[in-house]
């Protein structure tokens, strides 16, 4: 009997040490509570379920371990002969049902709250593409692409020569989604190729981006900060390389950002017009072309233009890169339907498109000698070519 008591005491203290360890370590091991009302409520529900599960395991596994020790053949040579008990079975059917009801009630109420995107103060259309996000602010008429900005040298480590990685490795973008705090922001999520999914853990917002359909979700962020998430639906090769970064700023800062963005757009339009008016020589085109190609195209078509057979066509020696320029321009400007080749008209300036097409037509032995001017791209887009 003394042994039995010691054993129970030992198990109990071991369990409490483990549990307290879990509680202390929760910050690293656990889901984050996030910053919004719904994310915190989700976290609380998550913790409640965990405690219920811990409680159930203590009872069930406890009974099992008790049997292992006290009902082993050497200690308990004569087995009991019972093999049913309607009352016991009824109890252990009823109790789980009650526990489940207890868990369902807060879950239902939280779900209703999370799915209520009504009466928003602003709306942003979120479009997933292979492999980047596009954001369009519906009230403020601002739109931009948001690409992973971690340099390839940091993630390609095939020769054990990767550069040092920053804290936000694979979770940083060139253009963050800026939203004002304390504002109910509605997101209208869609995609223009395959299914993607837009997720920001700190906001507890996750919604699938489905081509041809629009889904809505919302958030209201009380705390300024930068919140990082990722695409969460397998969408092809670079599914792991299209992060989501949302930066919540004060309403005043947001207004200033909107004004800055509009000014930026005007300036960019002027610069594009100037570039289009100018005439670029082959060298200038090849320099910008290579830079653009390595940043935007090499991920699929490879730095040496060799592509991946069956997935991404080789550009070296390809019919498109050595054939009619109009076809080449069409694919770069408009993309190719049914493939991962995106439409770059919105993502690159006319100068960049002209340069990259020139580069592709002259690099790797393609040597067509062709040059494409920014003005040519402009004319093509206007339907004049």
């Amino acid at each position, binding site marked *: 009997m003394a042994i039995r008591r010691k054993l129970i005491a030992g198990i109990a203290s071991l369990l409490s040490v483990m549990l307290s360890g879990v509680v202390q370590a929760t910050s690293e091991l656990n889901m984050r509570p996030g910053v919004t009302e719904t994310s915190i409520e989700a976290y609380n529900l998550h913790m409640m379920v965990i405690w219920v599960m811990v409680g159930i395991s203590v009872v*069930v596994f406890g009974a099992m371990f008790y049997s292992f020790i006290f009902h082993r053949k050497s200690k308990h040579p004569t087995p009991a002969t019972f093999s049913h008990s309607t009352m016991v*079975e009824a109890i*252990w059917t009823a109790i789980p049902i009650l526990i489940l009801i207890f868990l369902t009630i807060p879950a239902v109420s939280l*779900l209703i709250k999370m799915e209520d995107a009504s009466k928003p103060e602003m709306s942003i259309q979120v479009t997933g593409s292979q492999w980047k996000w596009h954001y369009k602010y519906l009230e403020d008429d601002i739109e931009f692409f948001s690409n992973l900005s971690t340099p390839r040298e940091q993630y390609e480590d095939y020769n054990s020569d990767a550069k040092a990685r920053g804290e*936000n490795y694979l979770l940083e973008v060139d253009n963050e989604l800026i939203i004002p705090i304390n504002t109910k922001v509605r997101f209208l999520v869609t995609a223009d190729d395959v299914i993607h999914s837009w997720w920001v853990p700190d906001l507890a917002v996750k919604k699938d981006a489905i081509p041809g359909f629009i889904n809505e979700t919302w958030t209201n962020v009380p705390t300024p900060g930068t919140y990082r998430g990722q695409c969460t639906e397998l969408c092809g*090769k670079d*599914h792991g390389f299209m992060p989501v970064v949302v930066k919540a700023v004060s309403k005043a800062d947001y207004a200033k950002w909107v004004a800055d963005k509009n000014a930026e757009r005007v300036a960019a339009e002027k610069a594009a017009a100037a570039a289009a008016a100018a005439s670029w020589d082959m060298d200038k085109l090849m320099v910008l072309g290579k830079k653009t190609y390595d940043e935007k195209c090499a991920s699929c078509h490879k730095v040496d233009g060799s592509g991946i057979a069956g997935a991404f066509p080789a550009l070296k020696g390809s019919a498109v890169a050595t054939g009619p320029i109009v076809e080449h321009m069409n694919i770069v400007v408009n993309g190719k339907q049914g493939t*991962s080749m995106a439409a770059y008209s919105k993502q690159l300036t006319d100068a960049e498109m002209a340069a990259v097409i020139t580069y592709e037509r002259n690099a790797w032995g393609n040597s067509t000698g062709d040059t494409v001017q920014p003005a040519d791209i402009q004319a093509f887009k206007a339907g004049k070519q």
Partner: protein
Amino acid sequence: MSDHHPTGITRWLYTTNHKDIGSMYLWFSFIMFLVGGAMAMVIRAELYQPGLQFVEPNFFNQMTTMHGLIMVFGAVMPSMVGLANWLIPMMIGAPDMALPRMNNWSFWILPFAFTLLLLSFTMEGGAPNFGWTFYAPLSTTYGPASTDFFILGVHMMGISSIMGAINVIVTVFNMRAPGMTLMKMPLFVWTWLITAFLLIMVMPVLAGTVTMMLTDRHFGTSFFDAAGGGDPVMFQHIFWFFGHPEVYIMILPAFGVVSEIIPAFSRKKLFGYSSMVYATASIALLSFIVWAHHMFTVGMPLAGELFFMIATMLIAVPTGVKVFNWVATMWQGSLTFETPMLFSIAFVILFTIGGFSGVMLAMAPVDFQYHDTYFVVAHFHYVLFPGAIFGTTAAVYYWLPKWTGKMYNEKVGKIHFWLSMIFVNLTFFPMHFSGLAGMPRRIPDYNMMFADFNMWASIGAFGLGLTQIFFLVTIVMAIRGGKKSEEKQWDGATGLEWDALPSPAPYHTFSTPPKVD
């Protein structure tokens, strides 16, 4: 009872004997398990550290896809069919399965189907790379050329499964020995009977899904293409209508195995036999109305989310009943802990942990934070590895003496168990944490905050992989040079196969049906 059997390679090509076919299924599933496991090793090697060291992202996606397809369709499902073939006729006192020639075909389709699937690695564009769940339009409009081979392979596997299921049902309904009423059958036979009905109901749905994919790809239909008036979400509904019952197809036979082994080593009858039957049937029925819990983030209306959340949580009730019944079987029994019992106990504990993460996933508003993260990967690997696979492992250890007349080495078996126990938890428990920390599924590279969890998971995986080789050696050593087993190796075992047959069981058994009281 006769032991005379044909020899040579034609024995295996033409056999209609349930024991031979059972052995072929089991060996085939083990080979597939190693192939799928090798792919897991590639995945875990790449994920061992942040950065891309070994494979390109497109190939990584092929690894994750094929790992899933091979494990689900090539390892778990055929292993269960192998057990069914060996055990069902012996357990019910039948001389063989009802349709022995169809049985041969059911098996032989599989090597062809999987050769086709694996050859896709050599095709331009590589093997399927869209996840084992092959959502449209990634798999339709954007799928590589090998997708069509994948579709053909799935059709072949489906036909094999349907034929196998028909065989099981007809055998169980029509060929039980006199006196063996349905409620006297061993629980393993019950769980397989119910699994067979699930197979018949949902494999046609899978066939329909992949056929619609084929016509969308090549015959101008637009089932899943919004441009033509179709709906990618419809793909998910139809797929998961198959997919959810599929996961119960993978686990119910393991429930049956454990329900045979635990009573044997507790020297006590299974607690609540009839509840176990009803619970299994309830789980099967409920499995048809919960499919959209895989789709909570797809943009379903609130009413749908509520319905599927509540229905999914309901499944916990009959599952809990089964767990409690196993515990009650052990309670006040007289327990010994040979290798089959160790694997069965681990099954109960670790499957239950997988069940806990399942209840968490069922809660839709919190599922938004878990969906498509490693938390889900942890959940299903817990119910599949220490679940289905430990169940099959326990079965192999338990019935090996009956099948071969040889005993495995108990010390070595226990080492296999402890290695498996340690490495399976080391591999998959950290995945709960990386998922909760925010790591999505199906990515070849990740931010530093996930690094430690991935490192531990990879170390565990390498150990787990090596442990399977250890298992292979254990079994081969037993079959080739093991000690002769007892006629009834386990004193607590019950059932016709133990009480009415010698070990090894002769090639033809129960040519005359036994009398069952």
